[in-house]
């Protein structure tokens, strides 16, 4: 679950500063950001020195400009050049997440560490039971040879003093598909052929070493251009700012967007079609059907669960329907999706109706950069029917509730929700087609709690759930 920590807040400050420079046409000052944020005499230093902090900040900005850090060809290339390349670019490099290698070196290479509680006992069961002969005693204490250790954990279980501890590698621990791993230098690399863009590693890394590449430059360039720009906002936005929907929509317009559409209206289409599709599939004798609106889950199926592929609903996502509505209304418009999700960016790149995908964190940072206070905006909303059933999509269980709403009463539906995709749930889903279970409808959300807990949120998920609850019953 996403939470606020210093690494997150530094990212938000970076987005705000960068956005401000783009808005004010002052991108030539971009190389000053790391210097301003880490002055030479700064006292509070959590990396080794201000110079290291600056280097890391530089690379984090490079990611915000949309580049893979590994694509750096010359260390001397200033951010100014990258900014210009970002403005000129027409295509983005592969993958959404990128590792800032400069920031990633701090994790222990192996998961097991001997603490100073080791008494150097006579029995030495750690050494005696190590299958790889990886433990030696140096100055009366056990020591693990990282080159021999295979992370089996027997030594930890054997030690009578609990002196050997398990130290997780946070990013690897949370990755549901083993897409991130260390190279010989101990630096993490993401294998894009496995990565499902769920963003769990980004949230987990205590050193802020994993960044989602941003489409900030493209979005802000589009606002500046002559062509209209339409913001389409995910249903979970209702839990993001302590404000009425109208206030949020009007705040977005103050950023320069010409129109704001709720993706909840597209979600109504998704729910309606998914209900229809469910009826058809059950009539055809299909065993079960899963939802298709979570892009991290859909990628997980494609890359890791071929046996589930035929059971995934073919109904397009709420983002697709909403972006299509926008383009039908204004054919020359640019569409920018705002959501809690990082995986949506890769879905957006494949969708001809979606031009850019941004997070709520980026939206919040844009408000700050532009000096827009959401609570000071009018709460006037355009007239029309509220897409209530579509708004339910924001939390776990909500998609099912919405689909149920459009199913005929006599439908035989036995639902189940996968609330958060981890290694265990993936194993379970892979087995599911062969299990004898009555369940015939599975809602899958990669983030625990649903979209309101996504990696790109601003609001604490518990608070978001409260804020959202008033829209759930309407």
């Amino acid at each position, binding site marked *: 679950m996403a939470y*606020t920590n210093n690494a*997150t*807040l530094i990212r*938000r*400050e970076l987005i*705000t500063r960068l956005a401000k420079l783009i808005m004010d046409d002052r991108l030539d000052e971009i190389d000053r950001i790391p210097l301003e944020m880490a002055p030479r005499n700064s006292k509070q230093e959590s990396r080794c020195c201000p110079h290291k902090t600056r280097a890391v900040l530089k690379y984090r900005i490079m990611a915000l400009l949309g580049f893979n850090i590994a694509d750096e060809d010359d260390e001397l290339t200033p951010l100014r050049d990258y900014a210009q390349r970002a403005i000129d670019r027409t295509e983005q490099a592969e993958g959404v997440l990128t590792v800032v290698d400069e920031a990633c070196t701090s994790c222990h290479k192996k998961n097991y560490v001997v603490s100073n509680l080791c008494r150097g006992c006579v029995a030495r069961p750690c050494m005696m039971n190590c299958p790889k002969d990886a433990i030696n005693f140096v100055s009366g204490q056990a020591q693990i040879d990282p080159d021999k250790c295979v992370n089996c954990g027997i030594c930890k279980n054997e030690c009578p003093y609990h002196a050997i501890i398990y130290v997780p590698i946070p990013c690897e621990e949370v990755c549901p598909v083993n897409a991130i791993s260390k190279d010989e230098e101990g630096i993490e690399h993401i294998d894009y052929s496995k990565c499902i863009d769920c963003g769990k590693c980004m949230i987990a890394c205590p050193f802020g070493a994993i960044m989602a590449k941003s489409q900030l430059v493209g979005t802000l360039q589009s606002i500046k251009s002559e062509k209209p720009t339409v913001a389409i906002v995910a249903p979970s936005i209702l839990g993001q*700012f*302590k404000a009425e929907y109208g206030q949020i929509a009007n*705040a977005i317009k103050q950023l320069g967007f010409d129109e704001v559409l709720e993706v909840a209206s597209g979600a109504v289409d998704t729910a309606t079609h998914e209900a229809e599709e469910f009826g058809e599939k059950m009539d055809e004798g299909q065993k079960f059907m899963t939802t298709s609106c979570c892009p991290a889950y859909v990628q997980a199926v494609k890359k890791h669960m071929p046996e589930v592929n035929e059971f995934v609903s073919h109904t397009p996502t709420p983002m697709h329907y909403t972006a299509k509505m926008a383009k039908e209304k204004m054919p020359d418009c640019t569409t920018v999706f705002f959501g809690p999700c990082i995986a949506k960016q890769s879905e957006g790149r494949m969708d001809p109706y979606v031009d850019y995908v941004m997070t709520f*964190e980026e939206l*919040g*940072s844009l*408000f*700050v950069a532009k000096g*827009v*206070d*959401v*609570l*000071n905006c009018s709460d006037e909303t355009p007239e029309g029917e509220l897409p209530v059933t579509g708004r339910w999509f924001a939390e776990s269980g909500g998609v099912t509730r919405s689909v149920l709403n459009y199913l005929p009463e006599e439908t035989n539906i036995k639902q189940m929700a996968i609330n958060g995709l981890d290694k265990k749930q993936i194993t379970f889903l892979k087995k599911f087609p062969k299990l004898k279970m009555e369940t015939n409808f599975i809602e899958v959300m990669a983030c625990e709690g649903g979209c309101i807990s996504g990696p790109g949120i*601003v*609001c*604490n998920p*518990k*608070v*978001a759930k*409260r804020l959202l609850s008033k829209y759930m019953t309407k």
Partner: protein
Amino acid sequence: MEKVDVKICYGTMCYVMGGSHLEMLKDHIPAEWADRVHISASPCLDLCHNTENGKAPFVSVNGKIVSEANIEKVISTIKVVIKDGLYQ
């Protein structure tokens, strides 16, 4: 007895910089203080424009500014006010 006046800034800057969880402050106030503390949600307190005030999110406790506020910090400030009657 006068109540301790706690104003949580709900300006967008404070919210984006991690202030959203202060919404849960009420749940963390010790029961014995419940009727001595008045918590209100305030529109932007206009503290973020002056770097001397520190960094967002901000909470005001009887006029004393708590910067980089979190639930712990706010509660310990309330404690000082209740025990010593400061910042009136």
